[in-house]
């Protein structure tokens, strides 16, 4: 869809981003030593760190991806909310305190605390880089989605804009400013999502919101011709002739008679009323011929109750095929195990002063993140019935929901979403640059760096990672960002969790076991993803049926494989050199 650019929206957006950058430069003066650059001197207050955890964690996937997936596919998007939060339980009860006690700057420090092995540092640094890059992709895709309606820029421009802004933030200040950016972003995100939820409940459910008369049920076709021009229903796309917005309630429960609106509803009444209503969803099919590539959107009126159960996105689950059920179980396992294995989350434990502060900040993080994920359900369902969705982009559901209330709210929400991306991406680039400078250059290659040089190498690494992230963000356009983050969780959990857990709980663990588990878990999960049906269809443009992997989420196989590898290799290698 084409979106008109409003000067107000651009103004608010620019003010937000400028404010964040100003803060970053201001705080940057504090972070010039290595301890300051990588770990904010270990002096961040636990409450600030807790909200920064939320800011770090509530990425584009949580805000844009989950809302979009709920808006278009119903309950299955909420599965991500449930799983993303459950992962924090692992982090708090099992990982938080020991990781604080073991490490200094990076995740590799912690895993290597007992062994002082160059091999461990190398394997863990590479896995940190792979996970960080996989997690960066969806953030960049989200940024690209955002700027199209907001600033009227193409997708790639959004990716480059966020890439440059984030690299500036990280290069100027490191962990101090990254922490504050995440704190501010986390606070704003929760406040405005709370406000949006109140507005959704106050508006209640409206039949054909934003439209007049009966819902137009004619299919829509978007064609991209070989020369790049876009047709809608066979005619050139213009502001006056565009795809119609989608996402509408078709009927209310019979008790409402002829009424077209429920009026304000409480949270449970909202869910219960929606369940007795019908909604119009749009099924997308694509095909290509000599005239170009065509996306056809066909409307269907369905009971909303169908969408409020598992099976909307993971359709095989509803069909009860074995591969569908394994895919679902595998995703839920990856989300559960992935959080505590994410390098950019783990490094946040080094910014507080001790294990007690690590614990307290995790609890603050869980409360904030849990509250936010409850809101995502209402935001997603509110978007599903808002009448303002863009059928071509699931990632824009939350900002377009805000637009259905007011242009100002749209600008604010988009700006927050953009700072959301900035906050998460800066955390990821920090983790990646730490892995390069501290783990690879200094510990693996054995280059002795002065404090000043260590910071400089980290900053150069941050620039390099920023460039890689921008390129991949452009390549992966069109994926739902929540789905992409699910893949990052699979890799993180497969590569890092077996080594971390066994190091803490199994005295026979050897350094060779850790190296093997990290390498095998990472390689196997990455290979699985790249050979899955989704990758075939969306990355290589090949039929999904050619893909050799039976389901797309590898964790169910690759996490046990990591544990098995560690145990076998540890048993066959001497515990002491």
């Amino acid at each position, binding site marked *: 869809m084409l979106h008109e650019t409003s000067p107000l929206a651009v103004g608010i957006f620019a003010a937000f981003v400028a404010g964040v950058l100003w803060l970053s430069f201001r705080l940057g003066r504090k972070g010039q030593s290595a301890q300051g650059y990588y770990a904010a001197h270990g002096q961040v207050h636990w409450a600030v760190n807790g909200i920064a955890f939320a800011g770090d964690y509530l990425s584009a996937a949580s805000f844009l991806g989950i809302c979009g997936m709920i808006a278009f596919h119903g309950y299955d998007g909420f599965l991500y909310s449930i799983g993303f939060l459950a992962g924090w339980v692992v982090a708090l009860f099992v990982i938080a305190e020991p990781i604080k006690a073991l490490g200094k700057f990076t995740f590799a420090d912690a895993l290597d605390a007992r062994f002082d092995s160059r091999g461990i540092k190398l394997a863990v640094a590479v896995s940190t880089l792979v996970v960080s890059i996989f997690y960066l992709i969806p953030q960049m895709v989200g940024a690209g989605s955002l700027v199209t309606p907001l600033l009227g820029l193409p997708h790639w421009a959004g990716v480059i804009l966020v890439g440059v802004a984030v690299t500036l933030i990280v290069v100027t200040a490191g962990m101090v400013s990254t922490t504050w950016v995440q704190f501010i972003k986390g606070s704003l995100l929760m406040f405005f999502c709370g406000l949006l939820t109140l507005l959704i409940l106050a508006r209640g459910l409206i039949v054909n919101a934003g439209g007049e008369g009966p819902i137009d049920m004619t299919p829509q076709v978007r064609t991209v011709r070989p020369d790049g021009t876009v047709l809608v229903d066979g005619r050139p796309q213009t502001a006056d002739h565009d795809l119609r917005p989608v996402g509408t309630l078709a009927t209310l429960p019979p008790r409402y008679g002829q009424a077209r609106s429920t009026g304000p509803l409480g949270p449970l009444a909202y869910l219960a009323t929606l369940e007795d209503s019908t909604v119009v969803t749009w099924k997308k099919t694509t095909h290509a011929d000599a005239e170009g590539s065509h996306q056809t959107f066909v409307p269907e009126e369905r009971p909303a109750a169908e969408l409020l159960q598992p099976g909307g996105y993971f359709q095989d*689950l509803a069909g009860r095929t074995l591969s569908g059920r394994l895919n679902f179980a595998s995703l839920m396992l990856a989300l559960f195990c992935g959080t505590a294995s994410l390098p950019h989350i783990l490094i946040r434990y080094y910014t507080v002063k001790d294990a007690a502060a690590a614990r307290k900040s995790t609890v603050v993080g869980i409360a904030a993140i849990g509250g936010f994920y409850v809101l995502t359900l209402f935001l997603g369902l509110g978007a599903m019935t808002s009448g303002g969705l863009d059928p071509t982009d699931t990632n824009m559901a939350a900002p377009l929901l805000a637009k259905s209330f007011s242009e100002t709210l749209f600008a604010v929400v988009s700006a927050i979403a953009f700072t959301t991306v900035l906050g998460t991406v800066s955390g990821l680039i920090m983790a990646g640059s730490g892995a390069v400078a501290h783990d690879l250059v200094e510990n693996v290659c054995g280059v002795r760096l002065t404090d000043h040089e260590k910071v400089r190498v980290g900053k150069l690494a941050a620039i390099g990672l920023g460039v890689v992230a921008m390129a991949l963000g452009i390549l992966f356009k069109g994926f739902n960002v929540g789905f992409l983050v699910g893949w990052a969780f699979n890799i993180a959990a497969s590569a890092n969790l077996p080594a971390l857990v066994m190091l803490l709980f199994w005295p026979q663990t050897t350094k060779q076991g850790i190296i093997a588990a990290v390498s095998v878990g990472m390689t196997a999960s990455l290979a699985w993803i790249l050979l899955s049906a989704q990758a075939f269809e969306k990355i290589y443009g090949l039929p999904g049926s050619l893909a050799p992997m039976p389901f797309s989420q590898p964790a169910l196989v690759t996490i046990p494989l990591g544990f098995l590898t560690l145990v076998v290799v540890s048993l066959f290698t001497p515990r002491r050199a």
Partner: protein
Amino acid sequence: MHDDPSGPPAASVSRLGLGFFAVYVLLYGGFIGLVLARPDLMALRPFGGVNLAILCGLGLILAAVVLSVAYMIARAGR
């Protein structure tokens, strides 16, 4: 390069934490098992007209928050 013979730092993982973790694993695993074994039950509406799928999801989020706060209080009291 050598392996430190002092063993893993498991002492810094609290037994209380592991107990809470086990409770949550049961809840989370129970939910996944239910979806896999009896997806039809998810449509039941046992409370407030809201279906079991949504109640389970909200319940799991609430359980995580409650357990973590309880853990913080319990650890602070030691």
